């Protein structure tokens, strides 16, 4: 709610004051305004919309949400890696590590979300009802399901290796793992992608225009981040590298699509200003840069580049939404 800042006006010289008085005496009016007051009587250059004021409200979310988008995406997709590892006979330590990443994310995510609430003590009100038409409601329930499954799966996986170590039968626990890990993976992919629906199904022009792209983008960034985190934790596996390459390739494509695809005022917020810069930087980090670093076999650098870009891209999209909401021209253009 800040007033638009007026440009500083050079102080009038005595000659200017004399000229103004002469002109006023001669013509009964002063032709030049001299001062461009925002919305001065009868604005000569009509602003877009009503005094250029926004037609839709910008998101009120605080810094926690960008970090949550990253944590939730990486945690959700980590359980997909755990499932793939479990099904293809990777050592149990790989599955346990992937589930640890999932569980860590499942603990951090609700904390970030609760901190963002206007009334954090009422966080349980999220679970009063289930509304499938509200992505926020679906997301809250998905997070509950995912957290439960991931944490239980981690306990069981750790228990299984513990039993195995002391020579007890681990088979019942293994059976349970084949139920819990698929459940974590299924809720995990939804957790990593629903955020695209959350942004897409809003009145914010830059978001709703990309309601089909956002779930793909968030999902692929989540998967790439999960692989990158496993690599940064020391796992150098060909499948992880392949997933990293694929994610970087898709990200390069999405970056090119945003850069070259939509022209005109509806995409202004994605290209211009601070959000535009963030989205370009994150697009390069997750896309071509991490791809090339992988080709050069610099795996840790590629992984770090992708993970950092993934965090930046979430903030880029949130800020782009804010800029887009504040620009009434974008709202009008999106409806024509």
């Amino acid at each position, binding site marked *: 709610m800040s*007033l638009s800042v007026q440009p500083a006006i050079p102080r009038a010289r005595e000659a200017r004051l004399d000229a103004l008085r002469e002109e006023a005496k001669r013509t009964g009016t002063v032709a030049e305004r001299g001062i461009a007051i925002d919305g001065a*009587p009868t604005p000569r250059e009509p602003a877009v919309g009503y005094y250029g004021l926004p037609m839709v*409200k910008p998101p009120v979310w605080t810094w926690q949400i960008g970090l949550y988008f990253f944590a939730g995406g990486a945690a959700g997709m980590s359980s997909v890696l755990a499932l*793939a590892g479990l099904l293809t006979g990777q050592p149990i330590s790989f599955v346990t590590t992937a589930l640890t990443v999932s569980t860590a994310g499942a603990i951090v995510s609700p904390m970030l979300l609760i901190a963002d*609430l206007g009334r954090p003590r*009422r966080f349980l009100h*999220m679970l009063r009802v289930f509304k499938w038409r509200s992505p926020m409601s679906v997301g809250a329930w998905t997070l509950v399901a995912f957290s439960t499954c991931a944490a239980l799966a981690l306990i069981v996986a750790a228990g299984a290796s513990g039993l195995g170590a002391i020579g007890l039968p681990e088979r019942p626990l293994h059976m349970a793992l084949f139920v819990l890990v698929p459940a974590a*993976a299924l809720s995990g992919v*939804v957790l990593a992608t629903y955020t695209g629906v959350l942004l*897409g199904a809003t009145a914010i022009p830059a978001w709703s225009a990309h309601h089909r792209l956002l779930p793909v983008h968030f999902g692929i960034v989540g998967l790439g981040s999960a692989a990158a985190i496993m690599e940064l934790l020391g796992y150098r596996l060909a499948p992880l590298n392949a997933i990293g390459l694929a994610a970087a390739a898709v990200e390069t494509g999405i970056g090119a699509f945003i850069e070259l695809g939509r022209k005109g005022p509806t995409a202004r917020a994605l290209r211009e200003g601070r959000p535009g810069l963030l989205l370009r930087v994150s697009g390069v980090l997750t896309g071509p840069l991490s791809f090339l670093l992988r080709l050069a076999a610099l795996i840790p650098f590629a992984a770090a580049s992708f993970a950092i870009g993934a965090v930046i891209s979430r903030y880029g999209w949130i800020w782009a939404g804010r800029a887009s909401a504040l620009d009434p021209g974008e709202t009008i253009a999106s409806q024509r």
Partner: protein
Amino acid sequence: MGATPFTLGQNQARHTHVADGTAVGFFTDPTVCIGCKACEVACKEWNQVPEDGFTWTGHSYDNSRSLGASTWRHVKFLEMNRRLGPQIAGPMSGGAGAQNPFGWLFLSDVCKHCEHAGCLEACPTGAIFRTEIDSVYVQDDVCNGCGYCVVGCPFGVIDRRPAQFEGGGGAFKCTFCYDRQIDGLTPACAKACPTESIQFGPLDELRARAEQRVADLQARGFSEARVYDPTDTSVGGIHAFFLLLGPPEELGLPPRPDVPTIHLRGAWLSVAFTSAAALVGACLAFALL
């Protein structure tokens, strides 16, 4: 001029719309608004809405900027480089006025109480519900301030109140004076409006009255007169509609608003596609490499 079917005093009459379950609405007519802001004051006083900053905007006599968490009625002051129909615009309208036409229009904006309400659909707690008079109401004791309704509203009406103000943290907007209506009273803004620019009544009756008013104004030379009620978009019509004398954008109203839930189908299909691709892709990568 007998064509105008005004029933003066309807805003002052008691009613039983809540008990009868009749859909009610507002018809706000800027052509008779005098910009007194009695509606803003009445709304603030009745609903005990806290102040939300005192600023000079420079936007004509409008210093409340926009609807928000603590501004539920908002009188817009539009200054235009054109005359409105055959209006007489004072001493300047003859000589100098011909070269320098000027029009001044006031419009009391309010929550639209949409047929398909974006805020209501978005709300994850069930705090927002539709009442028996078809208005959209936020239950303050349920709202946890998640802020999703804020980006769900295609009209930029509802907002989260900053923490430093009373009731801060929750989402607020016009209640349609549900508390007054239960007791058979008209909403505070309509009750206070001295010119009945704000008209309150059963929706069907108001819609008919608005059409009559438009026909009346067009017959008098206001050729651009029309009703702003987006019934042909996914919003499906609004229960607080307006009379306009120009494009809706100039009063900050979106030209073709859509309820954001129309994007759900495409976005969830995208989720299904991405989820399947991620699960299959990851498993294949681990199986083959």
